[in-house]
């Protein structure tokens, strides 16, 4: 794809940019903590855009004051799942928001095969489109190398 060089998964913030360095991640988390949002680390190996709920890496870190603790957890998660997608979300519990305010990917598999488009012909030559990640042809935990 011309618009997405290297088949990089583009979900959440910063996903069209080169991968964030640890320093940049720390700066982003620091911002989230300053706003009083609960930062959470999540991982998955199913990159489908409709896969909203990723596995949680521990509990959301409600009571941390400094990004160092969260970066530590990110690195622990990277050690455990080097070939999974890992993202950081920041949840805003303010009434009226009650939603993640930030979400960005901090780790991706070495090889990202991307998505295939499946066209299914139905009645009246109607076409139904389905997006499916090539990676999910394999069972969980065997998808990326």
């Amino acid at each position, binding site marked *: 794809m011309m618009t997405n060089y290297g088949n990089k998964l583009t979900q959440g913030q910063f996903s069209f940019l080169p991968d964030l360095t640890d320093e940049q991640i720390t700066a982003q988390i620091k911002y989230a903590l300053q706003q009083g949002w609960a930062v959470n680390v999540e991982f998955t190996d199913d990159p489908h855009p409709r896969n909203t709920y990723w596995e949680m890496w521990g509990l959301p*870190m409600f*009571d*941390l*004051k*400094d*990004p*160092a*603790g*969260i970066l*530590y*957890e990110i690195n622990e998660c990277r050690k455990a799942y080097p070939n999974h997608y890992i993202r950081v979300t920041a949840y805003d519990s303010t009434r009226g928001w009650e939603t993640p305010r930030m979400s960005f990917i901090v780790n991706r598999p070495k090889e990202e095969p991307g998505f295939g488009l499946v066209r299914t012909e139905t009645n009246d030559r109607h076409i139904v489109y389905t997006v499916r990640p090539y990676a999910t042809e394999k069972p969980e935990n065997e998808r990326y190398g």
Partner: protein
Amino acid sequence: MPEQQTTVQNEAIDLDAELRESNVQEVLDQLDRELVGLAPVKTRIREIAALLLVDRLRRRLELTSETPTLHMCFTGNPGTGKTTVAMRMADILHRLGYVRQGHLVAVTRDDLVGQYIGHTAPKTKEVLKKAMGGVLFIDEAYYLYRPENERDYGQEAIEILLQVMENQRDDLVVILAGYKSKMERFFQSNPGMRSRIAHHIDFPDYTEDELLAIAKLMLAQMNYRFSPEAEEVFREYIRRRMRMPHFANARSVRNALDRARLRQANRLFAARGRKLTREDLITIEPEDILASRVFTEGAPDEGSEPEAAPAAS
């Protein structure tokens, strides 16, 4: 590059400006003002602050790059102000830029050590994460190590602690606190811990005069004051109380004052029908103190008071 180097080297180094910029003097002055006595402690803290300030200048001139070891150990009897000083220390370190947030997380053995296998590591790490960017204050730190039980999980907590103290010196500063003799024994059995702590500060017991000054300071903060006779009586109270068991310095004084306030309120209440003045409301009279069991029975009112309430100042 060489020219630039010389300009940096020849630039006059203004220690005063550095001091002003960091606002450390303010904390040191506050320490002097609000803490009675503790002269050796204040001197050590001023020394440490000076060291850090100079170190910061040296780092700016690229003479040092290593983060200095800042872990400390406060030893002293209960009620000598260890937690209060630790809180000020966190503030000083924050102003000098050695910790990022400057908050103090006070914990005891219970917060670090788990109850079953595999419980300790996550628990300790949780606490460490919370303290990152600030100061971790471990009260009664010698309880972490229990030599009589070889399967005690405390050892595991110590190992994790040591690892973080060594590898993440930028992220947090650990302050251990406890009785002097017990901490000595703790360090003897954990030599790794001793070598990672740069500053050992001993908190002396307060003298009678200092305790009276503390009492007056505490009362002033609560908008009370002693009548002249009551001050003499309280001095006698302190003298007697100091010889009794479970004497916890400033903490005992605070408890005594709390009880005196209670008796004062009772006395005012009993004398209803008489018009009260503002003076009556703020004055502690001798009888409020003389009713204490220290005088009547020669035993402290706080007989059941624990030796040292953890994490209380």
